[in-house]
């Protein structure tokens, strides 16, 4: 240890703020003691600034091997010393694990996150001891300063910077040389240079990294700036809460003074330069240069109008150059490697790198540095590792709280000053906040505006009052009280604030609102028109996320509480207040409610659907005694189609006193519920029971009756018509050879099977598609005796629209899934079909936040099949004579919120409008149609019923900590033998136990 000459290895312990807070100091001590005890003499132990793996800390790097250990604790230190340092066997248990491949990655340079980076400004961070000037000098530090002082005139320095094309990293991207030149050209008693290290953006901490990890690089840059601009005094302005940074900068200044890099007559050149630290207390606006200058002068930190620019009249009225930390850290580099070579990094007119702080819903958060021009997609997905927990990407905010939110469609935007400006964004601070589908875009706009409003200095009217009014409107919208005219008002205000405000804070404050209105307007409209927050976060309209996500708005927490109280009858009544298909939903609902269940943030979602089924199975008919039927209205309504949409509408319209007739072309009512869902998921007697209740509410169903003409219904005396005919025609795959008889029509197949006909699709069945229907077809085929059933899907398994539970059951039943595969053509032979396929790979992200999949060249292969069933989507089969407008995609066009067609009195809903969708969405459409038609016929439009007794909420025992209760299922081997119901349902004990898991968000 004492003999420095023999040191060949370093143990570098990260002592950035994040790792420090996790006891990196103790780890260092343990290494020092351990190495001493072990008698190792060729290894030094030192700490460094942030190594950039904050989420994995504390981290330790062993050089020269370049091995990275993550989540190191004191307990592991003896093992590392023994195994790695003494025996040469690195400790694999502490390696980084690649989240995709699951493989351990020993070398930090091979970590995916590192690969696409170009560490220029942060070249030394994590590799040198920031408190030792010798470390910095050893990697070439202060050579640039020596070079310019001895060989270059200030003008030459400015020219060199100009040639490098370096632009300010503070956000605006102003050419540095121009700023310096302006200051240099003035005559004044004194001039100043200021390093703006007032990093105040939420989610931005890269300046801090440099301040803490490589303070000398910025100090050297500052001195060079002073030399070039003709200043003799410099200030570093940073936040007082950056305690470690303040300490290290102080140490750096002291050390630089000792070495003669700072002070009077530096290297005998006649150039004198002194640096002082000023700390601010965290007002965001003090990052604005004129406000920052005001605070150094001891005044309230408010900006003043430019011109005059600080370079002409700045601190104490003297010419002042003010540059950001990252800008200054670049300077020594430009000088040392030369302008030409620097200019080659990045893109034209945007030279160098961008240092970015990734945060939000991203796997690898932390600081990264990439060449200018790297796309957002590369940054978020290749380096950042994408979105955690299988969620989808929704938006990315870049540059700070007052900057743009960009949608998936703009992920290919290169990150550089000019490209971002084109899409209404700005590099700003370099903070990148990633948002997934659980983020409400209106709420995000509200949140960031509340930040800028709070941080507005109050000096200028538009920023002080305009942001407040904008915030009021956003709060109104988030509370479900918005009006459509508010959106115009928002735009008007945004323009006023943007164009009218004094400084950058106000001028950029509306950007989040403007870009979200531009790219996510639909979500605003949902909030305003439907009081719906698709992410279920807006507290004003979201009572509980489950209620809010349920298309029928079933009061989930309340029925769960009834179950918990041992009152399944009340629970059923509560469910029935919103839907006439409780039994069906209890079995087959795709339960979007569970996807937003807050319990999932602790362990797993409450099994809401299963509890509904329990309520249906164990609940009594008490609800019936509480139903009320309105007096006859004398109005008649025709409903075309007896699927869930049609029957729901019929049920509520009948309850509202109208005379309702449902027309069904098939022999039995139920639509897709009957035709498409196999018995093992939905036994027909259960369906019949729900339909019977609908009939007993007074609905007349005329089966085997096809309607060809809406007008004729009016002629028959109907006052209104609801078209709910579903989407009956299957789409083709779109490959050659699919006209063969072994390509089976999915609906016809299911229809036949469900009508009880025996049908054999053969032994080797291929199912194309990834939705519920595809899985149903596959599992049905298996039950029909197919030995080898393969689902072929072009995206990944995680992206399959079919629920995970269904997929797992299918796998258990021996069904294969060929993911990332697309059929190209079919060759129909004697013995079957040769389906030629190609492997797919991940491409861009589409507007829904999913990867596009693109064919992988040369990966063609084929599989042999006896039959192929395509389940790739449905089309509407609509008799022309209905005379209704259809939208571009072929479905009926309606007013999104009332479901009215352009024909008076005619409404449409369900799959015929939505395209293939879920049972609960169809029910929701039926409810909406009933409301709209009731209003059309002169009613109130209120269809909700009160079927349960008012709840007594003194019942508040703490939620259970047990895991999610699994419903018993038939063993897979049994399942494939018949069409018996697979899930067996909860018994009372399990149900009540599961109900106790509910967190009762609605009572918060």
């Amino acid at each position, binding site marked *: 240890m004492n003999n420095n000459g023999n040191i060949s290895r370093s143990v570098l312990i990260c002592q950035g703020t994040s790792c420090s807070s996790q006891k990196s100091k103790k780890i260092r001590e343990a290494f020092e003691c351990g190495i001493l005890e072990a008698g190792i003499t060729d290894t030094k132990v030192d700490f460094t600034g942030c190594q950039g793996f904050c989420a994995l800390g504390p981290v330790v790097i062993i050089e020269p091997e370049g091995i990275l250990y993550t989540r190191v604790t004191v307990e592991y230190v003896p093992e590392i010393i023994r195994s790695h340092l003494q025996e040469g066997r690195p400790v694999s248990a502490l390696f980084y694990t690649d989240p995709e491949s699951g493989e351990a990655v020993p070398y930090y340079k091979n970590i995916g996150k590192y690969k696409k980076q170009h560490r220029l400004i942060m070249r030394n961070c994590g590799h040198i001891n920031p408190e030792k000037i010798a470390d910095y000098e050893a990697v070439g530090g202060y050579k640039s300063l020596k070079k310019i002082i001895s060989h270059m005139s200030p003008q030459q320095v400015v020219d060199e910077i100009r040639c490098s094309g370096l632009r300010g990293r503070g956000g605006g991207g102003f050419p540095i040389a121009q700023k310096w030149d302006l200051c240099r050209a003035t005559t004044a008693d004194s001039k100043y240079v200021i390093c703006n290290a007032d990093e105040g953006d939420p989610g931005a901490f890269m300046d801090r990294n440099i301040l803490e990890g490589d303070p000398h690089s910025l100090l050297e840059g500052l001195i060079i700036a002073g030399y070039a601009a003709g200043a003799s005094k410099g200030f570093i302005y940073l936040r007082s809460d950056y305690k470690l940074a303040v300490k290290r900068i102080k140490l750096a200044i002291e050390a630089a003074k000792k070495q003669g890099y700072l002070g009077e007559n530096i290297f005998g050149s006649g150039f004198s330069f002194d640096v002082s630290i000023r700390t601010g207390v965290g*007002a965001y606006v003090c990052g604005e240069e004129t406000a920052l200058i005001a605070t150094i002068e001891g005044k309230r930190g408010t900006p003043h109008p430019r011109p005059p620019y600080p370079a002409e009249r700045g601190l104490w009225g003297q010419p002042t150059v003010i540059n950001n930390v990252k800008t200054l850290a670049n300077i020594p580099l430009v000088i040392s490697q030369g302008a030409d070579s620097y200019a080659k990094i990045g893109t034209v007119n945007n030279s160098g790198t961008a240092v970015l702080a990734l945060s939000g819903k991203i796997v690898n958060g932390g600081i990264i540095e990439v060449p200018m021009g790297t796309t957002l997609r590369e940054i978020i997905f290749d380096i950042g590792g994408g979105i955690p927990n299988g969620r989808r990407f929704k938006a990315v905010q870049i540059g700070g709280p007052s900057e743009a939110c960009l949608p998936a469609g703009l992920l290919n935007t290169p990150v550089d000053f000019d490209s971002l400006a084109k899409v209404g964004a700005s590099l700003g601070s370099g903070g990148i906040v990633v948002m997934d589908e659980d983020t409400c875009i209106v709420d995000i706009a509200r949140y960031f505006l509340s930040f800028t*409003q*709070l941080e507005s200095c109050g*000096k200028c009217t538009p920023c*002080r*009052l*305009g942001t407040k009014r904008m915030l009021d409107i956003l709060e109104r919208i988030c509370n479900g009280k918005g009006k459509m005219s508010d959106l115009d008002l928002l735009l*008007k205000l945004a323009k006023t604030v943007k164009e009218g405000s*004094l400084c950058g804070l106000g001028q950029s404050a509306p950007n989040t609102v403007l870009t979200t209105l531009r790219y996510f307007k639909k979500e605003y409209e949902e909030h305003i028109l439907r009081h719906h927050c698709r992410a279920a976060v807006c507290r004003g309209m979201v009572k509980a996320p489950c209620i809010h996500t349920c298309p029928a708005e079933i009061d989930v927490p309340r029925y769960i509480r009834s179950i918990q109280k041992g009152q399944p009858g009340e629970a059923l009544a509560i469910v029935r207040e919103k839907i006439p298909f409780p039994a069906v939903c209890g079995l087959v609902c795709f339960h979007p409610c569970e996807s937003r269940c807050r319990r999932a943030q602790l362990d797993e979602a409450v099994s809401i659907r299963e509890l509904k089924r329990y309520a249906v199975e164990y609940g009594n008919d008490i609800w019936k005694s509480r139903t009320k039927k309105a007096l006859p209205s004398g109005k008649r309504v025709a409903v075309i189609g007896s699927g869930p949409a049609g029957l729901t509408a019929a049920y509520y319209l009948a309850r509202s006193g109208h005379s309702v007739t449902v027309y069904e072309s098939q022999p039995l009512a139920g639509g897709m519920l009957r035709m498409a869902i196999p018995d093992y998921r939905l036994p027909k007697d259960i369906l019949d029971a729900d339909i019977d209740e609908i009939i007993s509410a007074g609905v007349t169903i005329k089966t085997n009756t096809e309607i060809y003409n809406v007008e004729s219904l009016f002629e028959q005396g109907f006052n209104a018509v609801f078209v709910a005919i579903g989407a009956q025609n299957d789409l083709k795959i779109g490959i050659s050879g699919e006209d063969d008889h072994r390509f089976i029509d999915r609906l016809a197949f299911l229809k036949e099977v469900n009508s009880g006909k025996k049908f054999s699709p053969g032994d080797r069945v291929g199912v194309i598609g990834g939705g519920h229907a595809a899985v149903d077809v596959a599992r049905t085929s298996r039950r029909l005796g197919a030995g080898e059933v393969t689902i072929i899907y072009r995206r990944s398994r995680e992206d399959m629209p079919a629920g995970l539970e269904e997929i797992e059951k299918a796998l258990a039943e021996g069904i294969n899934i060929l993911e990332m595969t697309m059929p190209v053509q079919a060759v129909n032979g004697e013995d079957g079909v040769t389906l030629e396929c190609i492997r797919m790979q991940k491409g861009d992200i589409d507007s829904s936040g999913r990867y596009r999949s693109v064919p992988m060249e040369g990966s063609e292969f084929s599989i042999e099949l006896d039959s192929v069933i395509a389940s790739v989507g449905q089309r509407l089969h609509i008799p022309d004579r209905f005379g209704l407008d259809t939208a571009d995609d072929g479905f009926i066009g309606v007013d999104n919120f009332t479901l009215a067609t352009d024909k008076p009195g005619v409404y449409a809903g369900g799959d015929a409008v939505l395209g293939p969708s879920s049972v609960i969405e169809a029910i929701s459409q039926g409810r909406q149609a009933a409301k709209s038609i009731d209003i059309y016929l002169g009613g109130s439009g209120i269809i909700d019923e009160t079927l349960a007794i008012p709840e007594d909420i003194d019942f508040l025992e703490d939620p259970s900590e047990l895991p999610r209760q699994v419903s018993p299922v038939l063993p897979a081997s049994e399942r494939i033998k018949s069409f018996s119901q697979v899930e067996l349902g909860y018994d009372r004990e399990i149900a009540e136990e599961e109900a106790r898991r509910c967190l009762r968000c609605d009572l918060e």
Partner: protein
Amino acid sequence: MSKVNLTVDGRKITAEAGMSVLEAALQNGIYIPYLCHSANLKPHGGCRLCIVEIEGMEGLPTSCTAVISEGMVVKTATPDVNEVRHNIMQLLLADHPLDCLTCVKNQNCELQKAAAYLGIKERIFDHNDRNFPVDDSNPFFTINRNYCILCQKCVRVCDEITCVNAIEVINRGYESAIGTFGNKPIMESNCQSCGECVVHCPTAALTIKKTEVPAYEVETTCPYCGVGCSMYLGIKNNKIVSVRGSNTDVNNGKLCVKGRFGIADYVHSPERLKTPLIKEDGKFRKASWDEALSLITAKLSSYPKEQVGVISSSRCTNEDNYVAQKFCRLVLGTNNVDHCARLCHAPTVAGLAQTFGSGAMTNSIEDMAETDCFFVIGSNTTEAHPVIGMNVKQAVRKGAKLIVADPREIDMVQFADIWLQQYPGTDVALLMGMAKIIIDEKLHNSDFINKRCENAEAFLESLKDYDIDFVERVTGVPREKIRAAAHMYAAGNPSSILYTLGITEHSHGTDNVIAIANLAMITGNIGKRGSGVNPLRGQNNVQGACDMGALPNVYVGYQSSTSPETKKKFEAVWGGNLSVARGLRTQEMFDGACDGTFKALYLIGENSVLSQPNSNHVIKALSALDFLVVQDIFLTETAQLADVILPASSFAEKDGTFTNTERRFQRVRKAIEPIGESLADWEITCEIAKRMGGKGFDYKHPSEIMDEIAYLAECYGGINYARLESGGLQWPCPASDHPGTPILHTTQFACRKGKLLPLKYRPSEELPDDDYPLLLTTGRRLFHYHTGTMTRKTEGLNIFMGRERVQINPLDAEKLGIGDSDVIKVSSRRGEVQAGVEVTRVVPPGVVFMSFHFAESPTNMITSCAMDPVTQTPEYKVCAVKIEKVIVN
């Protein structure tokens, strides 16, 4: 100034380089709406209403901050500008009450004006009630932040103009509001209640409590201190209902708390004297003018001329004073005329006459903006001359250096680069010590000394007495500080000395003044802008009263009363016999009264009982008089002793002129009819004169008196009322085409060469000892004036300070066991007074401070009767006292 051509909305206009686009447009009659702009303040760019489009500039720059340039093309009302401007106004209106009709600022509101210009007809945002509590704590104005539009003019005024910084912006974002440090009521802040913020407020956020819209306004001159601020009195139904500053070189619209809020209440006080009063059997009864004047005529005619005299008044007009001394000299036949300059700046007149040849402020208030280094000694400028105080602070804010020499830590100290805390009464040592350093270290201006001064050798020789050890010991100021101050003053280019009574009211007051003059001469700080020796005169017309010859030794224009030639000149004009016998000074008259050699006194507008030192002696003297006439506006403590009291009109009820500290004649204009039967002082004096057979007292209007003054004194020869209509004139102004003299001694001194004079340091007469261990020094307080006859009539001023509170250092207070709530007895060898206590570090240990504003605590009962031997100016600034706690039952 060079001119710049630009185009605004297609119109070609020309304006001075350096102007903002807004100023240039407004000057050329193009209105751009604005709310935060003020010609008196730095550009702010906050309200954003004055945005425009400028070719070649990005976005919508504010015209108040954009500086004009040649060929600039400005568009003030493009659709973009209009839209943003409109919305900004809507934002303001959303938070603003819409009770215009009942608002005090109705039709006088800049928000209203701008909204009307923008054609706002309805609000697009829901109205938001801010519900700020109203701050009603200040007696003069109300802060109602519900009307505030946060233009920050008040904040900026309080920073840039008054440099008090009582109002700040508190909080951030939407919660931003004007407030005070700690957001306490304004009365608990350091606000000095000058009201500048109220004047600048564009809305009703800051409003004066007692104010009405006047029927008309009359421009006149403030009756308080020697600054001589111009002001408009707003009149309605013969009452003063508003006061506002006028925009002149003197005060640029500024006023202090007394001027702005302390006038109407005393002018309209029910205590005003409304009829003559005659004392019978020790009691006053109302009398008719005829009766009173007859009595006076008879009495005054009955004494030998050397046994009668006149004391005139620094608060009366020049014309009043001229007539008073003319009456005394011509009708009474004696030079026994004096006035209260004797008590204050007589050493200035004497000291500067010896050194420069003329005893007045050498420079102007306006040129202080160019001073590089101020040396403020013996002047509590911010309290005694608040508006000049503001100017000095502004200059310091802009980079001027400031040296303050004062035993107390006065307000100015916090703005000072160097504070010299000398022991009271050691100024000669301090100033001569500085002079020695300047000479020794070759910081002097030898060119100036050689060319413009004389007697240098004797002076330089005398400096050897002031070696730094001696100076440090005598003054108690560390030598480094003295040296630093000497360097700073000598380096100032230019430097200016401001002083007041802390210099003159000493037993060596004239020496102090000479020491100051010496300092200015050796550094050449005389005769140029921003430099000079600048005694700040105390009362509104103390300069004028001296100028008018209300002094025993000189006629108007400082023409010697003992000179036969002058006698001849005046006899020719006045038409009567004049005396060349030396007249009595005030003190001599009082002494004579006690001796029985002085019998009758006509005392105009002076409250000697409270203002003279050693009041017991004054009361004794006045009581001993055979006949005392007091002419005043109130029944003062002095008037109580009179045989006849004559009701005079206040400044608001008469025409005339005041001469302010910088020698500027300014008009006083009659704004209301006289209260009761009161008459202007000159009218009363003329009436007495005429009844006593005096000729030449038939003036119909004060302008005729001014014409006579101009005729008789060369230095005022060019001054007449017609010229004064267009602003004040600074004497010397010898001819009607002479512009007046802002700076004295520019090319040569009044006495040709400046005379450097050697000085001997003499300690004050009465210093603390075992019996009287504390040193009492006296002075003024911001909220009151003189003996309080005027300011004590304003309730609000009494709320700020309603009784005497002796300033005492905490160490002394602790020793004596007294605190802020106690009553104490302060006694000297001459008497005792009771007063309250203010424990404060403003005074050093061993020193106590009192004002002389309160009749209840007549400080001058105890002050010393030591006097400056040259001028008989009393040593108010130093005497020995002791303090005891009074047990109040």
